[in-house]
């Protein structure tokens, strides 16, 4: 297949990212990389088929977008529905139960990504044999580390079960509050393993930091580029993963906007449709589709916040920012380090919450004046997640708009792939090294392509190079 006389290479699918994806690399007549595209090949239609459903059903319906971070969708939808029922000022018990659920999710998701999905790249190198470069390979060679990963994920999942009722697709958050509190017995169960989790988080952070620092020469340029960054921050500028106002900065750290009430997100964000992907391309409206794209997720959050309100993560943040003299860090592979700082932050937050007696409170739900339109935002593990709904008099949804975390990173992921292809493609031969590196660059963003396309899964890897007439020059499949 030719595109305007260019040659094309296809990598399908991208494995060990959570979702469907396919990469094509287009070459020009001189066999130089002209353009790279990450195609999102799944489409579900959630925006349309939730219409007509009652609003109170939405938090349990839309979480089925993604079984990897269902809590994020559950809570973003619930936050919007709080606003619909006029119950956005939650009781302390409700807010803290939800935060515990969210930090539990952050903890398990970051642990899953680091130990199950990326550690093979970091431990075995990008060129290691496919047969061992997976979590089972890690378990065989580094059993203690694999067990750590499994047990950390389990701890987070158990927190989700205790707050949401189920490990996957829970029901805990309801419009205006929560449907249970945390029993003393549940709390004590978590306190028992807490110190171990803190310890393991410290050591995971150390692995990520040491790896990044030791390989800085290669990593600094690997799929890296300057970009704007966007996240929620607290009113005082602190990192806040559950709630806050929108802040965007440019690659130098200058403010684009700050402390924006997210109910007004439509004044700031638009999404461009491109014909070759089901995933849209968000941008900051004032900067336009060409220049307005930005990054979200752990790296962006480290760059946008002015401090972290837990001591160990704050110390780690200072070290992280020192690497770039306090300026925003634009190194794609630094996502891993930033993610592990958030892992530590999450467990520090969990610790503080578990010692808070409000979790045993019994005042669970509030209500106020009913509204018919609402926006709910949250910092999901992979970045800022937007949910926006309109509801009619019969309590039915009439409009739903979702901008999921990974969608926000669409343009950055495409750029990362293009850069890596430029750096590592030579001639028209497909090498394992190229395949792996393209995947490593995408994986840094921890894309949940499930969310982004409202779908997920993985397929056989196939890469093709075609000439301008559509003849296959080289093909490689695993």
């Amino acid at each position: 297949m030719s595109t305007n006389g260019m040659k094309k290479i296809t990598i399908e699918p991208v494995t060990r990212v959570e979702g469907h994806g396919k990469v094509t690399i287009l070459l020009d007549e001189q066999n130089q990389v002209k353009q790279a595209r990450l195609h999102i090949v799944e489409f579900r239609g959630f925006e349309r088929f939730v219409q007509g459903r009652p609003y109170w059903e939405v938090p349990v319906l839309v979480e089925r977008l993604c079984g990897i971070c269902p809590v994020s969708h559950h809570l973003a939808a619930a936050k919007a529905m709080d606003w619909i029922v006029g119950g956005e000022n939650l009781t302390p018990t409700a807010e803290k139960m939800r935060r515990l659920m969210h930090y539990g999710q952050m903890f398990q998701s970051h642990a899953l990504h680091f130990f199950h999905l990326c550690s093979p790249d970091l431990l075995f190198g990008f060129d290691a044999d496919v047969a061992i470069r997976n979590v089972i390979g890690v378990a065989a060679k580094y059993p203690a580390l694999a067990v750590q990963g499994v047990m950390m994920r389990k701890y987070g999942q158990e927190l989700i079960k205790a707050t949401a009722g189920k490990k996957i697709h829970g029901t805990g958050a309801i419009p205006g509050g929560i449907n249970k509190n945390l029993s003393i017995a549940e709390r004590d169960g978590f306190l028992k393993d807490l110190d171990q989790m803190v310890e393991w988080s410290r050591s995971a952070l150390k692995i990520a930091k040491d790896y990044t620092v030791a390989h800085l020469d290669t990593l600094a340029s690997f799929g890296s580029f300057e970009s704007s960054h966007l996240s929620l921050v607290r009113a005082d500028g602190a990192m806040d993963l559950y709630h806050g106002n929108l802040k965007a900065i440019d690659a130098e750290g200058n403010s684009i906007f700050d402390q924006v009430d997210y109910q007004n997100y439509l004044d700031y964000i638009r999404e461009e449709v491109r014909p070759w992907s089901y995933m849209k391309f968000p941008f900051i409206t004032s900067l336009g589709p060409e220049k307005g794209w930005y990054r979200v997720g752990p790296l962006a959050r480290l760059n946008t916040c002015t401090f972290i309100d837990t001591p160990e993560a704050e110390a780690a943040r200072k070290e992280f920012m020192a690497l770039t003299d306090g300026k925003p860090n634009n190194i794609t592979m630094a996502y891993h380090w930033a993610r592990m700082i958030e892992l530590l932050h999450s467990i520090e937050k969990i610790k503080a919450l578990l010692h808070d007696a409000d979790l045993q409170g019994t005042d669970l739900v509030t209500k106020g004046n009913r509204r018919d339109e609402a926006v709910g935002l949250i910092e999901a593990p992979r970045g800022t997640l937007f949910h926006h709904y309109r509801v009619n008099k019969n309590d039915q949804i009439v409009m739903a708009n979702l901008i999921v975390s990974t969608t926000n990173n669409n343009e950055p992921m495409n750029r990362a792939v293009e850069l890596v292809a430029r750096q590592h493609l030579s001639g028209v031969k497909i090498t394992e090294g190229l395949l792996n590196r393209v995947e490593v660059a995408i994986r840094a963003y921890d894309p949940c392509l499930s969310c982004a396309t409202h779908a997920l899964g993985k397929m056989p890897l196939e890469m093709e190079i075609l000439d301008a007439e559509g003849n296959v020059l080289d093909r490689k499949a695993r």
Partner: protein
Amino acid sequence: MAKPKVATTSLAGCFGCHMSLLDIDDRILKLVELIDFDKSPINDIKKFTGRCAVGLIEGGCCNEENVRVLQDFRNHCAILISVGDCATMGGIPALRNNIPLQECYDEAYKNGPSVHNPSGQIPNDPELPLLLDKVFPCHEVVKIDYHLPGCPPPADTLWEALVALLTDKPVDLPYTLIKYD
């Protein structure tokens, strides 16, 4: 004797069923003593390496690619299991079945309040697999040997069923492990 192989895939699912499989936690280490994982999203194996004893299918079929993958699983696996409500009956994605596909596209790519689409194009590219007009449960596409209900099925359900199958015992799930939700 070589260990039996198990392959897994996610079609039109949310990956929650795979996550539920990971929720067997440290029993995953026991599982890899019993079996070898073949083609699966959790490793980098992208093509079947041979015949598999068991194939676990998450999600129904919403596009031609899903159908192709499902047929490939049928051809390579002695036992095929529909895992979760999406594979078993279409699940939440099948909510689109009584809505014209065009309306779903229009909502996502034209009418949405944050959409910027001056040309009014709907994504359409040779790289994007063709969507089916409806989302189909797996047993309407190929023969399925077992169905495990749940959204997702609890980790214990997956564990008990797999171990029973792999050790040639009857699958005898207690009431508490069989749930639709």
